[in-house]
Every structure is written in structure tokens, then in C-alpha cells.
């Protein structure tokens, strides 16, 4: 058998094809990362009691003055499902009761500090009761930062609701905050 020019060309074709098709090769590694739902809330700097005392007036005929405490902050971290509903924080008196003629008011500041994301707004002088009431809403993926001066500052105020019902009394209340889905 003679080796024709055509045969040589046919034999060379693999070389040409090889040099064109094997210069580059690719390989793939699928990667998937799943993020978790997160819902954390706490009160800073601690859960120690806030003591509010209405001082006796020193001048006959004067009203009793209101007393406030702004030492507590609320911190939270929230990660919500894609397309999921936002969250809210409620507050209620979970144990104890306010003495007669007195009411416990709560104000929540706008978020400050190191946080970010869709945080709640603010509220002023909400009278706390044993029923849960929304104090912050529209919380999405968000974090407030940790510790005092981060998140929302809480201001408790003890005010007089009815002078006619006032008696000398002392009471211990527990206020519970809950971060919940809408």
C-alpha cells in the first residue's frame, strides 16, 4: 500500500484537532451556602431591675412629679426568609401589677449606634398593660449592635393616672419583650 498525500493529511488531522481542542479544559465545582433564620433579642446592659419612685411633693397643692429611667437598651438581630414577612417587638407586663392610680409608660427611641438593616421606628409614652402591644414593627434583616448606646433606648416613666386612687404602695413588675413574626 502506498502512502498517499491524502492519507498523510488524514493522519495529521488529529494533531491539528488536538492542538486546537485540548489547549483549554474546564472543570466545575458546585457551591451552595444556606443562611439561617435568626431571631435574637435582649435588654442591655442587664436584666437588673429598674427602680422608679414617685417622690412626695414638698409644697402643698402641687402635683406629684413624674419619674423616669432611661438606663435600658433593647438590642436585636433578625434574619428573615427571602420573601417572608417582617417582624415586630411587643411588650407586656407579664407579672405584677401597677399600683392603683399609677401607670407605667414606655418610650422607645429610634435606632442608634452600630447597627444596620430594616430596624423598627420609635414610640412614645405607651401605657404598658398585661396585654402584648407592638412597640416596634417593620423589622426585616437587621441588627442593632450590642450593648448600651446601640439599638433602641427604653425610657420607663411612672405617672399618675388618678389621684383619687393613689395609696402608698410598692409593686414589682416584670416587663417581657418578644420578637415575633408578623
Amino acid at each position, binding site marked *: *500500500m502506498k502512502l498517499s498525500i491524502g492519507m498523510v493529511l488524514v493522519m495529521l488531522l488529529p494533531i*491539528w484537532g488536538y*492542538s486546537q481542542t485540548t489547549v483549554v479544559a474546564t472543570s*466545575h*465545582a*458546585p457551591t451552595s451556602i444556606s443562611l439561617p433564620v435568626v431571631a435574637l433579642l435582649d435588654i442591655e446592659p442587664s436584666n437588673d431591675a429598674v427602680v422608679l419612685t414617685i417622690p412626695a411633693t414638698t409644697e402643698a397643692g402641687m402635683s406629684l412629679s413624674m419619674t423616669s429611667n432611661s438606663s435600658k437598651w433593647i438590642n436585636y438581630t433578625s434574619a*428573615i426568609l427571602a420573601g417572608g414577612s417582617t417582624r415586630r417587638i411587643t411588650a407586656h407586663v407579664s407579672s405584677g401589677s401597677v399600683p392603683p392610680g399609677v401607670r407605667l409608660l414606655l418610650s422607645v427611641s429610634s435606632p442608634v449606634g452600630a447597627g444596620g*438593616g430594616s430596624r423598627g421606628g420609635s414610640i412614645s409614652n405607651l401605657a404598658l398593660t398585661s396585654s402584648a402591644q407592638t412597640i416596634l414593627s417593620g423589622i426585616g434583616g437587621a441588627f442593632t449592635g450590642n450593648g448600651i448606646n446601640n439599638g433602641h433606648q427604653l425610657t420607663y416613666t411612672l405617672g399618675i393616672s388618678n389621684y383619687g386612687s393613689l395609696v402608698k404602695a410598692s409593686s414589682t413588675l416584670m416587663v417581657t419583650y418578644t420578637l415575633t413574626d408578623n
Partner: protein
Amino acid sequence: MNPKGRYIFILVMLIHHIASAQFFSTTGSWVVSVPASTITEAGNNYTQAIASATDQTIMNLVPGTNNGQNRNGIWDVYISKEDSDWDGRLIISARRTGTGTPNSSNNSIIGGTTYTTVSATPSAFFSGRGGYNNIPIQYMVSGLTVLIPVKAYTTNITYTFLN
């Protein structure tokens, strides 16, 4: 050409073809679920990146010895990604954590030992000369934040072998 010459020619062609044979493969995907316990304190965001095993992907490669480019066994590996469902705040990086096993004592491998950010555009990862087996590769995802909606995000890491 006489029959003997013809057989020699064919043999040379076969040897050439075998000697030029290139091989490139990777094995090992990375599927990770970030534990909810990663954040332990209310108010905090994620503070750390998540890293895979140091040998999450294993690469094997054999360059062609004469593929028409006159590179004489020198090769380059590029890395890129093709997103399926990804959030731009998530940053994925990769690094080579070992040399693997060379097919010959004269082989060499260089680069890629520090994390390289992976993007849609191929970037040089590491390079070398000669064949290697079991080159270990580690991944890391940073940019984690609770602001990113909760679900699974997927991308395809693509390795391109240039020889």
C-alpha cells in the same frame, strides 16, 4: 514510502498523540449551611467568614507535552464562577492548600496559596509545569450579613486549565 517506513510513521504519530494527552479534572463540591448559633449575642451581625475543609476540591491535571503551543508542559489554572442564584454581598474565595503529588520530581507548582476572590471573570489562580494529582483547594465565604435574605445561594466554581 515502504511498509517499514509507513509503520514507523504511524508509530511516531501514536507516540506523539499519547505524549500529548492532556487530562484535567476536579472532584468535590461545597454545600454548607451556616449554623444559626453562629450569632450568639442579640445585636450582633456575622463577624467571621465560613471556610470549607482544606481539601474541599481535589484537582488532577496532566498537561499535554506538545500541543502545538510549545509550552513544554507549562500550564496555568484560572478560576471564575457562574452564579445560579447568588447575592453580590457574598464573596467567595479559594486557595490552594497543598502541592498535591507531582508525577515527576522535575515538576513544579506555584501560586494560589493565598485566598483569591472568585468573580465571573477568570483570574489567574496558580500555575506550574508537569502533571500533578490531588491538589487540594479550600473555599471561604465572607460578606455574611443578616441583611441578606435567608435562603440557599448557589454558584458554580469553574476552573480553566490552559496548557
